[in-house]
């Protein structure tokens, strides 16, 4: 459809000529109410000059009905009585626009979700409600005035929060497309959790081997400004124009001067738990997270540092890079889009006391096992058990720890990767110790991805891993710190009591601990499971409901590496699509100050949750920043002088709906 040359001029003085279109929506509406009667009813309403009904108004034919009536000059307001505006409001608005009618002279009456779908067995009731909705929509349509969308420019730059595999992939794609990227990572190195993994399923690629080239790419990419050991502390603005404040945490080591030689580590007298090694090994107060870290410079953990001064000695740090007086630096940048790629935290199984984590030394998490298997981990890839540092002859894994758990202290969802990572770790251990016995206690084995089922089959056939279908009830340790397991082999209905040397909990993935902070910082929502919420679970998996902000990777929900990378690329593509357009349309539902009524009390300014109201010191009145305004209506209701008006939801418009809803009695079906 092409846009009509002839634009229909409508002002406050123009007499409204309303066209009402009642949609059958197949049997969704027509199967419950008499749509012909509704059409006739619409014609009885004042200012309605024509009414039609059609099977599917959203179809090309349906849309054409409206287009033709507008182009013929018959109508200057359109009401479609159909589904929820969330479905097709944009569709019908576009029809109006292309036919030459301002798209905001359109109103949709929801007679499906709000009438027929919720009253499927009560045709009379549904009909009355449908009439009410049409009557209200017509009343509003009568009062509608033309509005113009705002176009705002979009900064061709993107802020990516999180430097793991998702963040890095988005960054590289966007950088290659020519956009400037700020990649903010709060630990001293990029790489994320993937750097802690040993091998990856099902290909058994070494994780570090596939990720380090990416890390190097990120460091080398000119368009990427890499900000490690930094955090986003403030985000203001709106789509295309976000104003972000980033805090660069003090390394206490001059990152330019530091050569990464590591001479400072040995003489440092302070040892603390190593987060990268998940408590299995220590690190010094001055440290680098792992050998292949990018950037490769050192950081001092000032909370543990005792400022003894040894590392600052010239015979220790030759480049003289130590700076005890380092301070945080704040950087303000303007970006057009933001991608949240904050990843996950492992589930802490301590509350599940029946599994003994934290109480019995030979109970560890699979994540810790990953470090034991890693060639640059605390045991250089030769796993041993904590109590006696001997290689275990028998190992048991328990699946679904903290996942698929409908009680307090766990998560209801399935973490999606644990069946595969347990199979992988089991296989790795069997490769190193073919004589060992490895058991995996499971409820279901979820091997859904490409190559996964084959991997699982091979684990049984070729590696002799024992899969036992039965979730472990409790464990305890014997006097040699072996772990005694109680489970039921549900497939033969027999209780099992099994003693193993090492017990591994396949823990699930959770949203990061400060997800709520990120949520409020960026005004994005989280779902019930704690992960960030996508705009639509099927059709918009990398968008959020906040324009310009996208999500990728496990930040959006547990997933494996292939899906994470796919989403990262998807988020980059969505962000690029926005930035490539150079400008974006914002709906004109913003608030407007009636200058002559404003008393300058600033109540509105103090209440605005989006900081969209400024105060003009000269004129002593409030001023609304229409781009920042999200049309929430708070200021409108609060203004004591009635000086605030909201586009498309003016008092007159709202009053007309309310009055018509309550005053006119409803008409019976058929009348």
């Amino acid at each position, binding site marked *: 459809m092409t846009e009509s040359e002839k634009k229909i001029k409508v002002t406050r003085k123009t007499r409204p000529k309303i066209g009402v279109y009642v949609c059958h929506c197949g049997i969704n509406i027509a199967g419950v109410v008499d749509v012909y009667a509704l059409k006739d009813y619409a014609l009885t309403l004042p200012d309605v000059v024509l009414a039609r009904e059609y099977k599917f108004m959203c179809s090309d034919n349906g849309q054409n009905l409206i287009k033709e009536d507008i182009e013929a000059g018959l109508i200057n307001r359109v009401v479609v009585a159909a589904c929820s505006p969330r479905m097709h409001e944009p569709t019908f608005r576009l029809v109006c626009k292309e036919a030459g009618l301002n798209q905001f002279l359109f109103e949709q009456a929801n007679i499906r979700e709000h009438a027929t779908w919720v009253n499927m067995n009560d045709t009379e009731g549904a009909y009355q409600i449908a009439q009410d909705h049409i009557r209200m929509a017509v009343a509003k349509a009568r009062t509608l005035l033309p509005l113009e969308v705002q176009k705002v420019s979009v900064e061709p730059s993107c802020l990516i929060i999180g430097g793991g595999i998702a963040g890095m992939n988005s960054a590289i794609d966007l950088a290659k497309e020519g956009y400037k990227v700020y990649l903010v990572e709060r630990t001293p190195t990029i790489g994320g959790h993937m750097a802690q993994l040993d091998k990856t399923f099902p290909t058994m690629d070494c994780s570090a081997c596939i990720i380090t080239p990416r890390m190097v790419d990120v460091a080398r990419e000119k368009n990427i400004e890499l900000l490690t050991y930094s955090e986003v502390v403030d985000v203001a603005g709106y789509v295309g124009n976000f104003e972000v404040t980033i805090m660069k945490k003090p390394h206490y080591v001059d990152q330019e001067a530091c050569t990464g030689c590591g001479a400072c580590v040995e003489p440092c007298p302070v040892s603390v738990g190593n987060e990268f090694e998940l408590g299995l090994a220590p690190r010094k107060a001055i440290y680098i997270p792992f050998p292949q870290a990018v950037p490769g410079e050192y950081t001092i953990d000032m909370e543990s540092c005792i400022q003894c001064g040894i590392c600052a000695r010239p015979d220790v740090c030759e480049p003289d890079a130590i700076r005890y007086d380092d301070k945080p630096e704040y950087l303000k940048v303007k970006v057009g889009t933001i991608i949240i790629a904050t990843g996950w935290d492992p589930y802490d199984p301590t509350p599940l006391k029946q599994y003994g984590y934290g109480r019995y030394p030979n109970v560890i998490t699979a994540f810790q096992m990953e470090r034991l298997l890693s060639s640059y981990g605390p045991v250089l890839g030769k796993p041993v058990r904590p109590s006696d540092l001997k290689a275990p002859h028998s190992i048991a894994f328990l699946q679904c720890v903290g996942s698929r758990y409908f009680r*307090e202290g766990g998560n209801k969802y399935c973490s999606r990767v644990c069946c595969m990572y347990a199979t992988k770790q089991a296989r790795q251990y069997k490769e190193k110790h073919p004589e060992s016995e490895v058991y995996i206690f499971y409820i279901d084995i979820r091997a859904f991805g490409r190559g996964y089922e084959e991997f699982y089959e091979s684990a049984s056939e070729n590696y002799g891993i024992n899969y036992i279908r039965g979730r472990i009830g409790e464990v*305890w340790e014997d006097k040699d710190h072996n772990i005694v397991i109680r489970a039921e082999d549900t497939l033969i209905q027999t209780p099992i009591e099994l003693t193993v040397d090492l017990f591994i909990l396949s823990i699930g993935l959770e949203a990061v601990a400060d997800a709520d902070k990120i949520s409020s910082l960026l005004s994005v929502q989280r779902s019930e499971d704690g992960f960030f919420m996508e705009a639509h679970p099927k059709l918009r998996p990398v968008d959020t409901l906040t324009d310009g902000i996208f999500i990728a990777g496990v930040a959006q929900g547990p997933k494996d590496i292939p899906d994470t990378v796919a989403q990262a690329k998807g988020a980059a593509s969505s962000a690029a699509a926005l930035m490539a357009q150079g400008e974006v349309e914002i709906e004109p539902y913003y608030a407007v100050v009636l200058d002559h009524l404003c008393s300058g009390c600033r109540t509105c300014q103090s209440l605005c949750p989006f900081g969209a109201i400024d105060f003009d010191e000269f004129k002593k009145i409030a001023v609304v920043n229409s781009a920042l305004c999200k049309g929430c209506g708070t200021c409108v209701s609060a203004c004591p002088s009635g000086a605030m008006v909201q586009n498309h939801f003016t008092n007159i418009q709202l009053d007309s709906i309310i009055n018509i809803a309550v005053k006119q009695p409803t008409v019976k079906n058929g009348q």
Partner: protein
Amino acid sequence: MVNKVSEQKDWRYAFFLGCVIPNRYPMIERSIRDVFEELGAELLDMPGASCCPAPGVFRGFHIPTWFVIAARNIAIAEDLGVSLITGCNGCYGTLRDAWWDLEHNSEEKKHVNKLLAKVGKKYTGNFEPKHVMQALYLDMGKEYVRGFIKHKFKDLKVAVHYGCHIVKPSDKRPWDGEYENPTFLDEIVELTGATSIDYKEKFMCCGAGGAVRTAVKEVAADFTREKLVNMREAGADIIINCCPFCHLQLDLGQVEVNNFYKDIIGEPFHIPVIYITQLLGVAMGMDPSRLGLVKNHNLKGVSPFIPIQPFLDIVKEQLI
């Protein structure tokens, strides 16, 4: 959670006796009455109270009967204007669960009150049913009780047995959801100077409850056998419990284990079984005769079935 607890600043409780305490182990009743008196609490009798009714058997037979008889018992205490306490895990399981369920199900509560009205009784749910351990540990508190300890054991190894219904279902109990590793009974035991030893499967069921003992004695006895083996292996001098049915199962049951399972247990067991208030009482300097520890009769075939003399000897030796 509905928690309409009566303000018991002066610790007045209605004493719900149940069946096993008054009718098979009256020494436990004696020790509870006297220890609570020493601690400054008043125990009121509940005239006409019946079986709670027992959760494994009677709730298993007919849940509606269980509800109405339990509510009737609670109503007797409510009539006295106080919370009831019981020294039995089974009665606690019934009375507390019934209270909880009725407070969360207004339909059932209405129905039960309709029946109770026919006998002139009313259940309001305003007084939470409590266990003796709840009164000691939560109402009075460890520090308060510690103030009454006059003598301490020097070397007494106690196998503490909690039983099941005092901590589970944990959502209906006052222990903050703790059921895998509670410590309140160990803490009260250790106030007396005794050591609560760790033993394998410390929190395992004794086997009596849930209608098992009344169904097949040998099955219940096998649970008990396992517990006794573990307690003996850990070097227990005595067993302490807070439930008369567990007490019975560990005491009379110990004799049954020695009989049924003599081929696999090696030496017969003879570990004295003592109720918590009996232990507490001796440490509080009370005369053992006030605690049901002294035999004043020549009756045959009555409790205790495992001689408690070894315990009395330790009391004589270690407590002045």
